[in-house]
C-alpha cells in the first residue's frame, strides 16, 4: 500500500494529540501514531485519497447523536447483493431502477450524512443515497446499470459497514403505523390546545351565552380526541381484557370513558362540571410518551434485526460427473457431499476430513483458545474456522442436524419458553384499579345530599383526579429515556422488561474467549530489529491467516513510511511466508507452540534475527470491570469451554476466585449452570454461549460474536469488549428506582386527591390544575433521574 504524509509539520501536531485522527477515540498507550487502530487508519487514508477532507471539518463542528466508534477492519465480499434472487427479496423496483435499504454501522453525526450521501457522486450507477441518522438506515437508489455491491463497497471503505435491510410487509406496516400515530398526536395537540383556551375563559368567569357556547365548542373539539386520537388505548385495553392480562390501559380507558360520559351528560343538563380540558390533555400526554417509547424500541429492534443478517455463504462442492467444484449455497448441502474448505473459510457442515492437514479455530463453538491440529479421518464441526491449508471434507450432518444447528434449535425453543414477565408498574396498576373502584363505590354511599347525581359527580371527580396519569405516563417515559440514551452509546436493549430483570440479578457469568479476552491472537512479545518492521508488514499484508492479520494490525499504526512491494513471495500454508524486499530475503515462520502462545521466528537471508510471540490476550478493561461488579455485590463467575489452565490464569488476572471458575463446559453445561443460579446475567459471544444467553434472565452478547448469540441475547453491545457491563447494571437499577420513586409519589398524590374528591371538594378547575401539576412533578423526577444514574451515563460516554 502506497501512502505518504505530505506535510510533516502537520504530522507533528497530530502525534501529540492522544486521540485518533479518524474516530476521535483515545489511542491505546501501547500504540504510537495518530490512529487508534488499523481500521481507522485505512478509512482515513481512503477519505484523504478521495479528497473528502471536508468530512473532518464538518465532524469537528457537528454534534453527535451517538458515540463515534473505531472503524472495524473488514473485507467483506458484497457480490451477493447483485444476485437476482437477492434483489428479488431485498430491493424494490422504482421508476429509475432499484432501491435497497442498508443499516450502516457507525454513523453518528452530520459529517456522516454528508460523506455517505457523497457515494452517489463518484460511484457510477448510484443515483442517490439518503441516510436516516436516527435509525442508521441508508436508502440507496441505483439506476438500471448500477450495482448495489459497488455502493456497499464504497460505504465499507468509508468505515460504515453496510448490512442489507429487508423491506418486508412488517417494515411497510410499521412505517404506516408510525405516521398514523404522529397524526393522532397532532390532532390531540391541536384540539387540547384550543379546548384549554376556551377552558381558561370559562374558569376566569365567562358566563351566560358565552359559557354555554364555549362548552359546546369544547365538546366539539373533544370528539376527535375521544373518537380518533385515543383509539390505541381502547384497542390495547380491550386486548388485555380479552386475554385476562393486566394492563395500565384498562384504568386509563375506564377513567377516560367515564369522564367523557358524565361530562357530556352534565353538558346536556346544564351542569358546569365538564372535564374536556383535563381529559384531552391526558390523552395528549399519554400518546406522546407512548410514541417516544415505541420509537426507541423500534430503533433497537431494527438495528438488531439488520445485524442478525447472515451473509449467504457459498461452498465448493465436488461434482463427480463434471470432475470439478460447483459453487453452491450452504443450505443446499446434503449428507455425503464432498466439500473443499480453503484457509480462513469456515466449515459449512459437520463431517470427516478426507484429505489435508490443517488446524482449526474452534473458539466460537467450544470456547477453546488454542487451535486444533486435524488430519484425515478426523471429525470437524460446522462453525469452526479452517486456519492453515485447504482440506476436503465429507459431509455427515448438515443444516439443523449439525451440532451448531441443534444448538440453534434448542436455543429457539428456550427463547419461546422464556417467561414473559409483566412490568412491575403494570402489576401495581391492578391494586390501583381496585382502590379507585372501591373509592368510586364509596362516594355513592357517603354522598351528603343523598342524590344520585351528586354521588355520580363525586365519583367522576375521583376517577378524573386519580386518573392514572402518573402511572401510565411516567413508567414508559423513564424506560424510553434510558433505552434511548443507552442506544446512543451503542448498547441495544430489546425492551423495558430487560431493564427490570437486570436490576434483580445476583450472579454474573462471563465467557472467557472473546469476552474477557480478545478471542484472536495478539502480539505479546516483539523482539525484531526496527528496520524490518516495514518488510514484515509488506509480507504479512499478503496473507489472510489470522496470525498475519494480527501482525498487520500491530504494525500498521507503527509504520509511517511507504510500504515496499515484495517479490519472489512464497507462502507455506500454516507455516509462514517469505519474500524478497530489495536485495534481502525475509522470512517469517512459525517456530513453536509454547505456554506463552505461538512463537514466530524472523529470518533475514536465512539468519534468525528476531522473535515474535502471539497469544490471546485479556482485554485491558476486563479486570476493572470485574472489580466494579464486585463493588455492587454481584458475584462474577467464569463459564468457559476452554481448558482448566488458561481459565484459571485468566481468573487470577481479572480477580475471580478459583472456586468460581468452570472450565471445559459444553453449551448444555453452560446453560445448566446459568439455570441453577438464576436470576443471573450471562455475557458471551460464541455459538457455545447461545444456550446460556437464552437461559439466563438477562443475556448480553458482545460485539464480534456470532449471529446466533446475538439472537439469543437481550442486550447487544455494538462496541467490542466488556467495559460498559457495570454501567449497564447500575443504569438498570437506578432507572427502576426512579420508576418506583415516581410510583410512590403518585400513590401519595392519588390518596390525597382521592380523599378530597370523596368529600366533594374537587371541581373542574382544581382537577385541571392538579393533574398537570402532578404530571409535571413526576416528569421532573424522571428527567433528573438520580445522581448515580447521571454519573453512570457520564462514565459510559467517556
Amino acid at each position, binding site marked *: 500500500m502506497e501512502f505518504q504524509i505530505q506535510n510533516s509539520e502537520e504530522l507533528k501536531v497530530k502525534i501529540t494529540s492522544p486521540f485518533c485522527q479518524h474516530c476521535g477515540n483515545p489511542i491505546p498507550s501501547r500504540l504510537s501514531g495518530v490512529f487508534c487502530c488499523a481500521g481507522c487508519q485505512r478509512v482515513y487514508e481512503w477519505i484523504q485519497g478521495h479528497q473528502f477532507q471536508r468530512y473532518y471539518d464538518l465532524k469537528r463542528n457537528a454534534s453527535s447523536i451517538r458515540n463515534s466508534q473505531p472503524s472495524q477492519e473488514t473485507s467483506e465480499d458484497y457480490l451477493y447483493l447483485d444476485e437476482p434472487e437477492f434483489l428479488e427479496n431485498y430491493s424494490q423496483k422504482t421508476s429509475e431502477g432499484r432501491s435497497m435499504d442498508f443499516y450502516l454501522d457507525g454513523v453518528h453525526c452530520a459529517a456522516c450524512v454528508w460523506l455517505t450521501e457523497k457515494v452517489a457522486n463518484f460511484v457510477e450507477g448510484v443515483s442517490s443515497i439518503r441516510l436516516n441518522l436516527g435509525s442508521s438506515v441508508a436508502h440507496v437508489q441505483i439506476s438500471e446499470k448500477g450495482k448495489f455491491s459497488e455502493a456497499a463497497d464504497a460505504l465499507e471503505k468509508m468505515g460504515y459497514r453496510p448490512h442489507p435491510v429487508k423491506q418486508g410487509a412488517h417494515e411497510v406496516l410499521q412505517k404506516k403505523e408510525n405516521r398514523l400515530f404522529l397524526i393522532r398526536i*397532532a390532532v390531540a395537540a391541536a384540539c387540547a390546545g384550543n379546548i384549554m383556551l376556551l377552558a381558561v375563559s370559562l374558569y376566569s368567569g365567562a358566563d351566560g351565552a*358565552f359559557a354555554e357556547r364555549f362548552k359546546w365548542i369544547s365538546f366539539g373539539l373533544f370528539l376527535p380526541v375521544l373518537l380518533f386520537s385515543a383509539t390505541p388505548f381502547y384497542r390495547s385495553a380491550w386486548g388485555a381484557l380479552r386475554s385476562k392480562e393486566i394492563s395500565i390501559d384498562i384504568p386509563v380507558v375506564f377513567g377516560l370513558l367515564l369522564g367523557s360520559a358524565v361530562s357530556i351528560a352534565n353538558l346536556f343538563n346544564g351542569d358546569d362540571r365538564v372535564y374536556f380540558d383535563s381529559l384531552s390533555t391526558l390523552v395528549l400526554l399519554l400518546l406522546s410518551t407512548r410514541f417516544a417509547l415505541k420509537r426507541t424500541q423500534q430503533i433497537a429492534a431494527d438495528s438488531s434485526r439488520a445485524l442478525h443478517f447472515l451473509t449467504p455463504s457459498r461452498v465448493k462442492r465436488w461434482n463427480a460427473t463434471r470432475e470439478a467444484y460447483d459453487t453452491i449455497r450452504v443450505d443446499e448441502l446434503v449428507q455425503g457431499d464432498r466439500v473443499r474448505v480453503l484457509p480462513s473459510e469456515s466449515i459449512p457442515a459437520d463431517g470427516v476430513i478426507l484429505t489435508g492437514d490443517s488446524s482449526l479455530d474452534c473458539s466460537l463453538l467450544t470456547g477453546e483458545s488454542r487451535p486444533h491440529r486435524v488430519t484425515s479421518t478426523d471429525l470437524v464441526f460446522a462453525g469452526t474456522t479452517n486456519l492453515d491449508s485447504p482440506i476436503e471434507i465429507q459431509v455427515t450432518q448438515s443444516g439443523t442436524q449439525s451440532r451448531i444447528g441443534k444448538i440453534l434449535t434448542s436455543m429457539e425453543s428456550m427463547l419461546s419458553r422464556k417467561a414473559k414477565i409483566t412490568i412491575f408498574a403494570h402489576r401495581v396498576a391492578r391494586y390501583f384499579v381496585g382502590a379507585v373502584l372501591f373509592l368510586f363505590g364509596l362516594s355513592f354511599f357517603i354522598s351528603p345530599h343523598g342524590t344520585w347525581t351528586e354521588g355520580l359527580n363525586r365519583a367522576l371527580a375521583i376517577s378524573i383526579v386519580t386518573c392514572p396519569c402518573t402511572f401510565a405516563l411516567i413508567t414508559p417515559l423513564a424506560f424510553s429515556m434510558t433505552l434511548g440514551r443507552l442506544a446512543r452509546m451503542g448498547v441495544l436493549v430489546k425492551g423495558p422488561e430487560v431493564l427490570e430483570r437486570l436490576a434483580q440479578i445476583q450472579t454474573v457469568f462471563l465467557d472467557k474467549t472473546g469476552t474477557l479476552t480478545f478471542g484472536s491472537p495478539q502480539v505479546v512479545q516483539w523482539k525484531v530489529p526496527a528496520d524490518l518492521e516495514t518488510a514484515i508488514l509488506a509480507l504479512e499484508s499478503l496473507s489472510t491467516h489470522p496470525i498475519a492479520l494480527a501482525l498487520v494490525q500491530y504494525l500498521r499504526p507503527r509504520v509511517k513510511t511507504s510500504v515496499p512491494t515484495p517479490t519472489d513471495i512464497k507462502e507455506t500454508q500454516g507455516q509462514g511466508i517469505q519474500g524478497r524486499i530489495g536485495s534481502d530475503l525475509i522470512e517469517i515462520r512459525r517456530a513453536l507452540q509454547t505456554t506463552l502462545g505461538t512463537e514466530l521466528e524472523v529470518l533475514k537471508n536465512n539468519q534468525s534475527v528476531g522473535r515474535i510471540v502471539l497469544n490471546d490476550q485479556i482485554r485491558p478493561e476486563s479486570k476493572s470491570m470485574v472489580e466494579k461488579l464486585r463493588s455492587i455485590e454481584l458475584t462474577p463467575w467464569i463459564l468457559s469451554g476452554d481448558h482448566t489452565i488458561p481459565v484459571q490464569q485468566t481468573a487470577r488476572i481479572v480477580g475471580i476466585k478459583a472456586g468460581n471458575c468452570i472450565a471445559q463446559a459444553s453449551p448444555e453445561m453452560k446453560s445448566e449452570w446459568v439455570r441453577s443460579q438464576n436470576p443471573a446475567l450471562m455475557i458471551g459471544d460464541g455459538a457455545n454461549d447461545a444456550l446460556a444467553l437464552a437461559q439466563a434472565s438477562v443475556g448480553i452478547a458482545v460485539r464480534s460474536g456470532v449471529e446466533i448469540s446475538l439472537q439469543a441475547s437481550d442486550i447487544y453491545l455494538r462496541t467490542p469488549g466488556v467495559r460498559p457491563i457495570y454501567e449497564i447494571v447500575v443504569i438498570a437499577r437506578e432507572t427502576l428506582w426512579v420508576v418506583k420513586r415516581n410510583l410512590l409519589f403518585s400513590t401519595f398524590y392519588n390518596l390525597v386527591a382521592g380523599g378530597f374528591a370523596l368529600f366533594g371538594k374537587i371541581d373542574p378547575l382544581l382537577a385541571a390544575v392538579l393533574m398537570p401539576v402532578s404530571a409535571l412533578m413526576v416528569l421532573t423526577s424522571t428527567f433528573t433521574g438520580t445522581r448515580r444514574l447521571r454519573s453512570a451515563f457520564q462514565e459510559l460516554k467517556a
Partner: protein
Amino acid sequence: MNIIYILIPVTLLLGLFFIVLFILNSLDGQYDDLDTPAHRILIED
C-alpha cells in the same frame, strides 16, 4: 364582544387548515425521519 362570534370560527378554521396540512405531509413521508433534517441543515452544498 360580538366580535368573538367571528374570531372563534376563524381561529378554528385556521387550526383545521394546519391540521389538514400536517396530515397530508405526514402521509407523504415528510416526518418518517425525525432526526436527520436537524443535522442536514448544517451542511451547505
